């Protein structure tokens, strides 16, 4: 088509210069090759990270979103929710989870899953973090190696993670109280564990709880540990007054279990895992010595049972040995009276050593009933007594009543019936009336009058003392003071009296000296007496006054 060297008007144009050849253009294919390699590596990486897919069934999908909700173990993401569907019967939701490759061990039987979302319960607020980060599915791996792809999710986070240090124990109680899963377990008011599960007993007559005590505090659970329900405030208004007892404010709200060793010598070996304990209603019951079997007795009172309540204590010589369990009225057609039938459970073992001795004695009296018969013969009677004057609460006292009228006691009766004595309340009333009478007889009026007169006399006497006696006394004292003053003046070292005395003594001395000189002169010149003294050397001049010789 184009002719070689076609002559034209452009022949004077320059020829191109010759240059060496550049790099081979086919190198450009490295670019897509590189891209392909990168893409391939991405695919391989994605494929390698692909872990097992599991399905978890939950009651509700609240907070769970496809492609968003993560599955976490110890806050490490181990998978992600892929899809959320309803189950075929539409009763539950099925969450499809793609686990990471590294989390393959979570697709085994025994792994537990639950939705971690913010929960506000009596036990406190949990999962606060999920308020901001969104809910996630928590996982707790088990020990099993068996592969599993379908799980039933827990509705609540498990109270105990597997592998957590600590021990789990079994408690048995009459009822659950205000306890719940997660309720705290306290040891000396420090939280050391929690209730992990509970269930009704097979026979429906009690509740079995499992608690978990964290290590290392689990060692304080000894074989003889006593557990009690620390829930709520235990306010009891009984014959022994008002009692308020609580473990802590938290337990008041949320309930809890407390445990401690009983006082006195006991077995301090740490209890083994899953040891069974009784959960007592309160601390006092838990710490009380074991009651042993109870003995039901019935008492017939011919008086009002006002103030006596079911649960009131029964005391023997002041020792609580039982409680009232029933109060009923009977009708005595013969006497047209309504005696009260009070049933009580007695725990003789509470008497301690006395019980042991009594039991030994009972053997010789034909059993416990026989012993009781003997005691009744010696005056043992049941009485209703006032336990608390303020509230009028009554209790039943078993006491030996002196000169008690003879009572019949049938040791073979079922139930045993204890004879009663008139209650102390009537007696008390009588005594109070007597006291009031005596008080009334006191002549308060005349006492008052006499007291008045006496006071008036005393007043006069005091006035006299004030007005007359005291001034005189004052004067006397002044005089005495003056005398003492003068005495003081006279006796002091620089007193004039003292000085005069000194001068007198000196003059006396001088006089004695002159007298001696005179006698000496007269001894030599006796004529001087007649002729007078000749000129003779004069006697030595007397020393100036005050000069000591």
């Amino acid at each position, binding site marked *: 088509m184009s002719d070689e060297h*076609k002559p*034209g008007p452009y022949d004077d144009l320059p020829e191109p210069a*010759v240059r060496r050849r550049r790099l081979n253009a086919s190198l450009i*294919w490295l670019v897509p090759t*590189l*891209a392909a390699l990168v893409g391939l590596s991405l695919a391989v990486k994605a494929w390698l990270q692909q872990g097992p897919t599991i399905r978890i069934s939950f009651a509700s999908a609240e907070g769970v979103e496809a492609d968003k909700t993560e599955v976490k173990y110890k806050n490490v993401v181990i998978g992600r929710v892929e899809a959320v569907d309803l189950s075929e019967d539409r009763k539950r939701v099925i969450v499809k989870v793609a686990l990471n490759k590294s989390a393959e061990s979570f697709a085994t039987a025994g792994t537990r899953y639950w939705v971690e979302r913010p929960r506000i319960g009596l036990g406190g607020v949990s999962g606060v973090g999920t308020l901001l980060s*969104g809910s996630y599915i928590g996982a707790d791996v088990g020990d099993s190696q068996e592969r599993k792809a379908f799980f039933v999710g827990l509705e609540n986070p498990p109270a105990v993670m597997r592998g957590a240090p600590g021990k789990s124990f079994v408690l048995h109680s009459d009822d659950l109280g205000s306890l719940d899963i997660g309720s705290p377990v306290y040891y000396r008011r420090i939280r050391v564990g929690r209730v992990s599960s509970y269930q009704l007993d097979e026979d429906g007559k009690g509740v079995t709880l499992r608690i978990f005590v964290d290590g290392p505090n689990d060692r304080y659970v000894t074989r003889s540990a006593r557990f009690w329900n620390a829930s709520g405030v235990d306010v009891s208004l009984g014959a022994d007054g008002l009692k308020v007892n609580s473990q802590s404010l938290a337990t008041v709200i949320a309930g809890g279990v407390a445990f401690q060793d009983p006082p006195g010598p006991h077995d301090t070996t740490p209890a083994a895992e899953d040891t069974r304990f009784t959960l007592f209603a309160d601390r006092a019951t838990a710490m009380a010595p074991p009651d042993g079997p109870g003995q039901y007795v019935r008492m017939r009172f011919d008086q009002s049972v006002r103030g006596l309540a079911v649960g009131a204590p029964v005391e023997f010589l002041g020792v609580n040995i039982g409680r009232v369990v029933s109060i009923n009225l009977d009708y005595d057609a013969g006497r047209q009276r309504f005696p009260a039938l009070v049933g009580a459970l007695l725990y003789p073992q509470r008497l301690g050593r006395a019980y042991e001795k009594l039991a030994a004695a009972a053997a010789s009296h034909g059993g416990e009933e026989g012993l009781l018969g003997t005691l009744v013969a010696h005056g043992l009677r049941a009485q209703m007594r006032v336990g608390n004057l303020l509230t009028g609460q009554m209790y039943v006292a078993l006491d030996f009543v002196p000169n008690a009228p003879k009572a019949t006691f049938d040791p073979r009766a079922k139930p045993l019936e204890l004879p009663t004595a008139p209650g102390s309340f009537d007696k008390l009333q009588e005594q109070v009336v007597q006291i009031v009478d005596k008080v009334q007889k006191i002549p308060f009026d005349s006492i008052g009058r006499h007291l008045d007169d006496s006071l008036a006399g005393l007043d006069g006497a005091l006035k006299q003392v004030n007005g007359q006696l005291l001034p005189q006394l004052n004067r006397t004292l002044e005089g005495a003071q003056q005398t003492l003053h003068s005495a003081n003046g006279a006796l002091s070292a620089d007193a004039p009296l003292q000085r005069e005395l000194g001068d007198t003594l000196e003059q006396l001395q001088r006089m004695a000296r002159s007298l001696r000189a005179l006698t000496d002169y007269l001894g030599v010149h006796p004529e001087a007496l007649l002729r007078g003294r000749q000129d003779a050397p004069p006697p030595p001049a007397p020393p100036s006054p005050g000069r000591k010789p």
Partner: protein
Amino acid sequence: MSAPPRAVELGLVGCTVCGQVCRAPGPLAQAACPRCGAVLRRRKAGSLARSWAFLIAAFIFYIPANLLPIMRTVSLGDVDDNTILSGVVELWVKGSPDLAVIVFAASIMVPMLKFVVLATLLVCAQRRSRWAQVQRARLYRLVDLIGYWSMLDVFVVSLLTALVRFGFFSEVEPLPGVIYFGLTVILTMLASMSFDPRLTWDTDKDAP
């Protein structure tokens, strides 16, 4: 021959850099512009191969660009990883259909359009087809014009990342997807740059 003559028919070649016209009676090889020294070529060297290579690489990267999330938004603890498509869906659902349309056009439609158009141009040029030459030329200009405008997603992500840094409560974080998307856009741009539009008109068997 009714068509006007072309440079090759006149034995001429123009320097693509300085515009100097040189005589080139024979096939050009290792020729340089006598004035500025640039390599003289009748057509871009290896245009078809380069374009194909870039286009294929772009297409390969387009797959992870769409599968991988391009951006993580954290608002009030709600972590949200979005791919391009899920971002579009979310925009639409959350009440910004106009934005959704723009993002969809820029990030899905335009790259796809580029692939199709460039592939068509390349195939036609390779076969020296005379089919719809004028329209093909227009398409090429269009593709060239759009160029980096489909980088919109990359711009959005980088802008958001720079702007929204309120710590825990709100955060935008780019994810690997955006790199692949950027690479896709760049590679398509390179592909369209490598394509010599004159090839569209080289319908003769003996053309260079």
